[in-house]
C-alpha cells in the first residue's frame, strides 16, 4: 500500500477499514543469501538498501526483541553533519543528504525537520576551533555558519548570556541539521524492506554462529539454525556480546547514555542547541517537551538505565544555560547502551571470518548516521568493498595508527 494524502482522505471517508499491517510476520526459512543481525535503525536500513539499491534478494533481518526496540527508539532524534575530520565528514554529509530525501524514498512520514543546530561558543579558542570545523564542513559540501552573540540572542533572548563561567559569545550553526521522528525511521525502513521481500524475523535472538574453515555458514538462534552466505552484524550496544559468538574481541566498551524529556511547554526552542562546555544539549519536540541529555554515565554498563548523579549533572547544565526552566518538571528519563569505541568513531568492515561483516561502534552518534550506515553496510555486503564515504571505518585503523579521534582523547572510550 502506497501512502499519500489522497489515501488518507479516501480512508477517512470509508471508515479507515483499508489500512493493513505494515509488514509481515514470516517464519524463518532454512537459509538466506544475507542475514542481518539486529532489527534496529541500522539493520533495517541495511536490509532496505541491500534490496532496493543493490538489487539483492533472499535477505532476513533477525531481531531479538521487536523492531526498533533498541537505540533507534531511545535516542534524542538529532541529525547533523558537523564533524571535522576527513574520515567522518563526507560520511555524515552523505547521511544528511539521504535524510533530506528519505521520506519520498521510502514513502513514509518520518517527520524530518531541518530546524537547524547550533553549538554555543564561550571563548576565543572555542570560536577558532568552531571556525575551523565550519570551514572543514563547507569544504566537504556541508553547510555551516558562524553566528555572532547578537544573532544567537535574537534567536534565544532568554538564554543566560552572562554566565560567569561560560558567557555565550556566539555559535556555530548548521541550518540543515535538525530532528527526525526516530521510531518512524525504523518503521519506514522496515516497511520498505518488507515490501521488497525482506523477511523481518522478530523474537529471534542469535545464540551462536556456525563457522567452518574460517567461513560463516549461518547462525544458531532461539528459533533454530538459519543458514546464510553472508551475515552482517548491526547491533550497536551489544556488539561485543554478539561478536563473541565468532570468538572476536572488539575495540570498544558498552556504556549507558541517559536521555530526558520534560513536560510539554509552549514553543520556545526552535532548533537544536548544544552547550558542550556544560555537557548539555536540548531540542523541543513537536509535542512541546524539552528533549535533552548530556554525558554518558562513564562506566561499563548493559543496564539500559543510568544513575542519579548524571541526572543531577545534566540538570545543572540545563539550569546554567536556561535558568527559566527551573520549575519545569521532568516527565521521563531513560537509558540506552552505546558501543563506545576506542577513538569515538564507528567501524563498518569485514572480519577475519569470510562472509561475516560488522557494523558498530557508533558511540552516541548512531541515529544521525542511520541512512548512510545502512547504505555503506549494504554496499560492503553486496560488493565486498567499502563505500567511498566509509573507507576509514576499518578494524585495523588502531593497529596502523589511523584513528579517527574527533576529540583527541585517545584510547579512553568513556571520554569520547
Amino acid at each position: 500500500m502506497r501512502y499519500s494524502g489522497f489515501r488518507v482522505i479516501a480512508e477517512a471517508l470509508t471508515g479507515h477499514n483499508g489500512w493493513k499491517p505494515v509488514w509481515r510476520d514470516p517464519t524463518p526459512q532454512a537459509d538466506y543469501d544475507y542475514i542481518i543481525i539486529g532489527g534496529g535503525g541500522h539493520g533495517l536500513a541495511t536490509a532496505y538498501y541491500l534490496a532496493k539499491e543493490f538489487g539483492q534478494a533472499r535477505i532476513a533481518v533477525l531481531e531479538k526483541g521487536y523492531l526498533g526496540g533498541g537505540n533507534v527508539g531511545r535516542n534524542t532524534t538529532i541529525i547533523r553533519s558537523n564533524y571535522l575530520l576527513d574520515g567522518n565528514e563526507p560520511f555524515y554529509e552523505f547521511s544528511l543528504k539521504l535524510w533530506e530525501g528519505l521520506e519520498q524514498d521510502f514513502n513514509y512520514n518520518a517527520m524530518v525537520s531541518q530546524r537547524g543546530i547550533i553549538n554555543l561558543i564561550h571563548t576565543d579558542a572555542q570560536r577558532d576551533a568552531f571556525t575551523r570545523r565550519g570551514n572543514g564542513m563547507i569544504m566537504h559540501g556541508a553547510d555551516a555558519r558562524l553566528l555572532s552573540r547578537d544573532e544567537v540572542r535574537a534567536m534565544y533572548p532568554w538564554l543566560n548570556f552572562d554566565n560567569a563561567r561560560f558567557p555565550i559569545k556566539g555559535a556555530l550553526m548548521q541550518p540543515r541539521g535538525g530532528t527526525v521522528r526516530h521510531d518512524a525511521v525504523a518503521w519506514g525502513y522496515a516497511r520498505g524492506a518488507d515490501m521488497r521481500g525482506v523477511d523481518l524475523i522478530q523474537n529471534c535472538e542469535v545464540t551462536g554462529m556456525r563457522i567452518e574453515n574460517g567461513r560463516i555458514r549461518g547462525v544458531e538462534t532461539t528459533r533454530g539454525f538459519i543458514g546464510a552466505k553472508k551475515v552482517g552484524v548491526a547491533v550497536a550496544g551489544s556488539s561485543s556480546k554478539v561478536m563473541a559468538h565468532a570468538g572476536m574481541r572488539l575495540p570498544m566498551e558498552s556504556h549507558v547514555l541517559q536521555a530526558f524529556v520534560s513536560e510539554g511547554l509552549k514553543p520556545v526552542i526552535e532548533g537544536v542547541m548544544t552547550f558542550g562546555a556544560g555537557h548539555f544539549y536540548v531540542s523541543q519536540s513537536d509535542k512541546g517537551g524539552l528533549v535533552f541529555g548530556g554525558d554518558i554515565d562513564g562506566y561499563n554498563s548493559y543496564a539500559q538505565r543510568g544513575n542519579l548523579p548524571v541526572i543531577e549533572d545534566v540538570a545543572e547544565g540545563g539550569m546554567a544555560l536556561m535558568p527559566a526552566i527551573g520549575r519545569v518538571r521532568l516527565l521521563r528519563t531513560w537509558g540506552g547502551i552505546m558501543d563506545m569505541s576506542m577513538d569515538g568513531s564507528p567501524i563498518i568492515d569485514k572480519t577475519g571470518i569470510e562472509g561475516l561483516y560488522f557494523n558498530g561502534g557508533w558511540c552516541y552518534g548512531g541515529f544521525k548516521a542511520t541512512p548512510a550506515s545502512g547504505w555503506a553496510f549494504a554496499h560492503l555486503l553486496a560488493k565486498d568493498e567499502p563505500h567511498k564515504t566509509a573507507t576509514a571505518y576499518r578494524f585495523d585503523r588502531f593497529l596502523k595508527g589511523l584513528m579517527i579521534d574527533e576529540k583527541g582523547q585517545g584510547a579512553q572510550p568513556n571520554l569520547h
Partner: protein
Amino acid sequence: MIIHHPILGPRDAQEFVYLGDASLIDRPDGMTAGIEAFHDYLYQRSNPAGEHRELWYHEQGDRSWLVVTRNTVTHEITKVELARDVARAKGRSK
C-alpha cells in the same frame, strides 16, 4: 553506586574516576612484546555483560587505585580490592 573502599569504607562512586577493564594492569613488556600484543592490550576489550573487574581511581579521596568487581547488567558490586595488592599478587613490583 557505593564502592566499599578497603581502607576508607563505603564511598560514593562520584568520588572516583573510572578507567576501564582491570586487564590494563597486565601491560606487556615494552622491550619484548610485539606491536600486536600492545595493540590488543591498549585497544581490545572483552566488554562482558555480567561480572567485570575494572579499575577505579579515588581522585577525591586517598588517590588509591582500586580493582572493583561489578556486574555490568545490575551494577551490583561484589568485591573491591586495592589495585596495588592485585598487581603485587601478579608479581609486579609496584
